[in-house]
């Protein structure tokens, strides 16, 4: 199936938006304050860990 239904396409576009605004761009170290729960921070760190292990 090559054609995405509109809902799936909209969701993927949203993923792209979130991924860029919250995950990329210039970072001012130490000054990002976002309201995400602690569990989510654990997941961020896990991802970073995997990424570094992955490049071994």
């Amino acid at each position, binding site marked *: 199936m090559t054609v995405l239904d509109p809902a799936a396409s909209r969701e993927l576009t*949203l*993923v792209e938006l979130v*991924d860029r605004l*919250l995950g990329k761009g210039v970072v001012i170290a130490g000054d990002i304050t976002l309201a995400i*729960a*602690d*569990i*989510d921070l654990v*997941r961020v760190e896990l991802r970073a860990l*995997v990424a570094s292990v992955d490049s071994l």
Partner: protein
Amino acid sequence: MTATFPDVLSRRVNADPEDVERGLAQLVLTVVELLRQLMERQALRRIEGGTLTDEEIERLGVGLMRLEERMQDLTAEFGLKDADLNLNLGPLGNLLDEKEG
């Protein structure tokens, strides 16, 4: 985990113990899924690198396949979707739950 861990969970979801359990399951399964993907990537790299025997490939394949199946079962058992463990979004998948009209 810190002492405040259960507090964080109950703040995020309501205080329903089932939801708390589900939140924990989500975290644990995310970790396992992450490791599964890591192992899968390592396995593929080794196959590409030609450093595995046929027997090793078969064993690795069966192990990973079973792990993936088990993960699918567990995810379903806890009423989670693949997207709940979605690592590509990192912590930000929650935001997508806010579907606007």
